[in-house]
């Protein structure tokens, strides 16, 4: 979670708020923040660290592992209408890539800003060309985009 905390400023620039969730109590969250995370990220964790001791939140999001009583590493991008636009769930030993989350947020925000008139090809990042779906694009994507542009 320190990786997310370290990129909090760039997430805030995109107007995205962060909530982390684990089965630990809020008391333990405080101990982890004060004793370890604040040594990795200046000022400590700047967002809500939620406690889900009964696993109810994790269950609703498909992240709850009932055999171990923990949450899998789930990441959800929720838009201003409260709709989930992206999700990724990893088993515990592999961490996330926060930069990829930032990229996806930027892409979904661009889609929203254009009212869905533009679509974002594989690997899109700000400044790269987008696709304008419509009858003229059918069978012609190769003219405006190819995998080397990813």
């Amino acid at each position: 979670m320190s990786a997310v905390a370290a990129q909090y400023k760039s997430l805030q620039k995109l107007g995205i708020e962060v909530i982390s969730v684990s089965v630990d109590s809020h008391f333990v969250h405080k101990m982890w923040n004060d004793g370890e995370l604040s040594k990795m990220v200046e000022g400590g964790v700047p967002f809500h660290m939620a406690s889900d001791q009964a696993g109810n939140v994790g269950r609703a999001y498909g992240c709850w592992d009932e055999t171990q009583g923990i949450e899998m590493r789930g990441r959800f991008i929720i838009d201003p209408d409260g709709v989930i636009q992206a999700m990724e769930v990893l088993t515990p030993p592999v961490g996330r890539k926060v930069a990829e989350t930032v990229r996806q947020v930027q892409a979904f925000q661009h889609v929203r800003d254009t009212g869905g008139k533009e679509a974002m090809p594989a690997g899109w990042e700000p400044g790269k060309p987008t696709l304008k779906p419509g009858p003229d694009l059918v069978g012609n994507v190769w003219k405006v985009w190819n995998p080397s542009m990813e």
Partner: protein
Amino acid sequence: MTARVGQKAPDFNAPAYYRGSFTNVKLSDFAGKWVLLCFYPGDFTFV
């Protein structure tokens, strides 16, 4: 209700630690904002 892309995110209200205080965090309080919701196995784990 299980979370799916393109569907409403399940609301929740949970105790939380936030900037030195104990509080509650409710997802629907963030309506109108983008939210990044991150689950992880546990505090003091290594990844």
